[in-house]
């Protein structure tokens, strides 16, 4: 079945450093979504990427979708303590509606 792998599992950074999490699917995706879950909270939608090679930015966050639509990345520039949480990618397989979440990358930011 479809698998979505996400690395790294954890990342500790000093405030101001950059952070990147990577997501890889075993199958071609129709789209990929990114969610953020704060400690003790529930996942909150950040963005969806649909097109091959698509790049989207939200302030300090940059999201990319690979040319083959099987991988994606989230890059945060100059992290802040408010960026703390777990970032999940979620892929939807072509032709279906089921969304498979990666295991998430937990970001720790030291002030």
């Amino acid at each position: 079945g479809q698998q979505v792998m996400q690395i790294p599992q954890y990342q500790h950074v000093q405030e101001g450093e950059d952070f990147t999490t990577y997501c890889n699917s075993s199958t071609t995706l129709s789209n990929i979504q990114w969610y953020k879950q704060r400690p003790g909270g529930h996942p909150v939608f950040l963005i969806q990427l649909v097109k091959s090679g698509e790049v989207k930015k939200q302030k300090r966050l940059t999201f990319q979708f690979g040319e083959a639509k099987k991988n994606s990345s989230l890059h945060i520039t100059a992290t802040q303590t408010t960026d703390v949480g777990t970032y999940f990618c979620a892929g939807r397989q072509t032709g279906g509606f089921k969304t498979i979440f990666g295991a998430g990358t937990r970001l720790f930011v030291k002030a």
Partner: protein
Amino acid sequence: GAGVSQSPSNKVTEKGKDVELRCDPISGHTALYWYRQRLGQGLEFLIYFQGNSAPDKSGLPSDRFSAERTGGSVSTLTIQRTQQEDSAVYLCASSLYYEQYFGPGTRLTVT
């Protein structure tokens, strides 16, 4: 407007008992998902409802798990003969297009 609500917020049950978890999606959302999240882990897909179509049950871990959605709105996840490994947070999400809106979850503890 109101978001996704889930009840109860916490449930402690004895091993072997049955439990019912409830999800009230956002009004008008046609898609509804159930996920399981063990402590410090990612989201495990359980089941997906889309309109009047047959649900995608491919993520249910055993026949002790079942879910229904009445009238295209409220959904109930039932776990029969609970086991300790069922302890987790059960998250419900609803969606109209692609963005999933998550509820606060039900924390289930099986003693």
